């Protein structure tokens, strides 16, 4: 089981802050394919990966990163702090 978390407009499109996902996806990109098939909101949220960022166990990562051993995956738009 992986905890998948969503922030900002991604959270709003999907309608959930977090989901428990039972997956055998090898990489983040594989997981995205699985998630995008869950609902229209998911498909819309993941329509343009260039507008998304991902963190694995709270460290920034790429979409080609492996998921082995990862407990928490977070998806969000580029950060706008400050």
């Amino acid at each position, binding site marked *: 089981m992986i905890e998948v*978390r969503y*922030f*900002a*407009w991604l*959270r709003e499109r999907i309608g959930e802050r977090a989901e428990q996902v039972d997956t055998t996806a090898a990489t983040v990109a594989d997981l995205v394919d699985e998630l995008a098939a869950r609902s229209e909101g998911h498909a819309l949220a993941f329509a343009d990966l260039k507008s998304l960022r991902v*963190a694995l166990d*709270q460290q920034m990562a790429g979409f080609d990163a492996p998921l082995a051993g990862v407990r928490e995956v*977070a998806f*969000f*738009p*580029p*950060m*706008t*702090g*400050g």
Partner: protein
Amino acid sequence: MRLSVQEAPFDLGAESVAFAGSVAGAGAVVTFTGIVRGDGGLTAMEIEHYPGMTERAIRAIAEEAVARWHLTDALVIHRHGRLAVGEPIMMVATAAPHRGDAFAAAEFLMDYLKSRAPFWKKEIGPTGEAWVAAKDEDEAALKRW
């Protein structure tokens, strides 16, 4: 080094005085405060963050600043939740033996907090709500470091 991610308001004067009073060995203190701007009739800002990751990201950024500019101390306060126009969103303070290092490190902290700390801003105004999009120039600003 004090780093705080908080919903509550902070007292800019008290924080500045406390920081400046605690930095033995420094000859310069620089402080920066970010305020919610009222552009285009904006009435409030909603700031979301990623608890846990936010603190970790800010610590990594601040530790890099301390190492690169030999700061004697650094302070970062960043708020989340709903903030009205005119309210302070965040502040950074740096202390160093000389002002050049303190100014540079404060700018570095600001540039990195904008693009590398997991905060997202939503503007609330007369026409509704809209997430603030990241700007290319914010990303470009990181290249100078």
